[in-house]
């Protein structure tokens, strides 16, 4: 896999970082993480309505102002309130990433189940094709698609969905093939149940945990790739702005140490790290995950 393949290990590493003696610290981290994830999910829904200022209105302030009580996170290169722009941007970063992840995990699940049920040439051809697709680095794939089609939100969602489909497909297929060899599936088949019924009622319930954990990990990859594309100016296009675009448009303030550059980047980091810790908390011992 092209993007950080052994993040699955993070749980084991987390356990070694915070061993049992520090159980408190670990449970505190795991308690806070889901709250941060929930906070950003809520902001994606209601963010634009609770901003302290109009995110696109130029305020009576200097450019790249530092943090103050009036502008909690300072102002951007136009003198707009940064906190309002980050809250409004949550809709794009979280929303696009969520839809793209749903798309890739959903179709990965469907194709993986279908491949294991149908088998034969269909399975072999699909597996080969998707395996080969992994050999294109994810950023490269994104750049080529944007060069050919231009950048719009539907194109971004579709591209991100396709890039992370093969990973999910692989996992679903390998679990499905293993589960299908177990006794209760043989029994169901002997009872005369149809393939569709077996897939839905016997095999699917046995992979809910791994699939949900995989969903979280793909979500992190998608957020990082989307932010990178937007940071390069090839993702979400102005006047709309996700967190990656916010970093890009304010990059001129970096030599002055403006919070406008760092804050959106920290928002991304808070989201990805919190999702990572949440998965670890929910699926603590992820032995089942391929």
């Amino acid at each position, binding site marked *: 896999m092209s993007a950080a393949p052994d993040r699955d290990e993070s749980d084991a590493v987390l356990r070694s970082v915070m061993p049992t003696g520090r159980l408190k610290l670990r449970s505190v981290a795991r308690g806070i993480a889901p709250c941060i994830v929930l906070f950003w999910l809520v902001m994606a829904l209601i963010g634009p309505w609770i901003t302290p200022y109009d995110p696109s209105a130029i305020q009576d302030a200097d450019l790249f102002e530092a943090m103050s009580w009036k502008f909690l996170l300072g102002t951007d290169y136009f003198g707009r309130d940064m906190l309002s722009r980050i809250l409004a941007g949550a809709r794009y970063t979280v929303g696009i990433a969520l839809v793209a992840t749903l798309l890739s995990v959903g179709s990965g699940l469907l194709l993986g189940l279908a491949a294991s049920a149908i088998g034969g040439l269909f399975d072999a051809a699909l597996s080969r094709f998707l395996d080969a697709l992994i050999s*294109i680095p994810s950023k490269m794939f994104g750049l080529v698609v944007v060069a050919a089609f231009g950048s719009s939100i539907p194109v971004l969602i579709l591209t991100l969905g396709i890039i992370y489909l093969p990973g999910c497909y692989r996992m679903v297929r390998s679990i499905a093939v293993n589960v299908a060899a177990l006794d209760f599936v043989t029994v169901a088949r002997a009872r005369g149940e149809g393939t569709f019924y077996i897939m839905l009622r016997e095999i699917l319930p046995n992979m809910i945990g791994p699939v949900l954990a995989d969903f979280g990990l793909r979500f992190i990859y998608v957020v990082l790739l989307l932010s990178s594309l937007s940071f390069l100016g090839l993702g979400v296009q102005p006047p709309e702005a996700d967190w990656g675009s916010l970093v890009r448009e304010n990059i001129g303030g970096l030599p002055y140490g403006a919070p406008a550059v760092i804050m959106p980047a920290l928002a991304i980091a808070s989201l990805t790290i919190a999702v990572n810790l949440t998965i670890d908390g929910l699926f603590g011992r992820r032995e089942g995950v391929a």
Partner: protein
Amino acid sequence: MNQTIGRLLLSRLVISLLTLWFVATVVFVITNLLPGDVAQTLLGQSATPEAVAGLRKSLGLDLPPLQRYLAWLGNLVTGDLGQSLVNRQPVAALIGSRLGNSLILAGVTALVAVPLALILGITSAVARGSLYDRTVGAGTILVVSVPEFLVASLAVLIFAVHLKWVPALSQLGRVDGVLDVLRVFALPVFTLTCVIMAQMARMTRAALIDALSSSYVEMAVLKGASRARIVLYHALPNAIGPIANAIAFSLSFLLGGVIIVETIFNYPGIAKLMVDGVATRDLPLVQACAMLFCGAYLVLVTLADIAAIFANPRLRHQ
């Protein structure tokens, strides 16, 4: 070198070549799927149909797709990368003028990152479970789960804004003396090193811990061998294969990182060239750069696999 290894190597190389061909096909298909075409985009909406038809003919767009695909593949193999749509210069010349800069950046980063990562990985594997190991572990996890541009911005904030050791942007134009070279490369190399070192150190640590938990190491412990002797003479030689695999694989992360780093530091390398090409939708340039990057990625991944083949003792002594 025996027959099994030879056969494995050969089949690995064949698979790599087939994959490269597949990648080229995907790149061609994506860049030719668009219903409207490049000629129209280039000339704009107000162009006469005759002008568009003329340009299509001169770009070869009037030929059937299969014929264009074969011609494109043929040109790729012979090194003819076509002409930039934006400034009419040969793509090969554009890439040639920038390739050196990127290779220097990647080379310097590898020279810094590989030894550092090995030291971090080996020491934390030896001191497994200690505060040092846990700190390194937490740090590397943190670096791999945040975007590269956050690492870069923090580096600029700390080293350029607060400490004022280095300038914020690279300017290759006026470089005189060793000190200037250091100042230009410091931040890009630092950022890239952080990004790939984290991955490499974690994989090195895992490989060495694997070797340290084997029964021959337990035997050495029981015989009373010293700690240094156990690590350096017993565990490390057996972990070299997996570690080489980790190094080659982590270096492939350079490709993703270099795109962000060259952009944020305004470094005149090939990744910046490609990003600019994507922004102006200069398809021949983007195709060539994409093939170059995917090719480099495949080479590194293949090297990692070859290291893994050589690392397998069951294959070595057959």
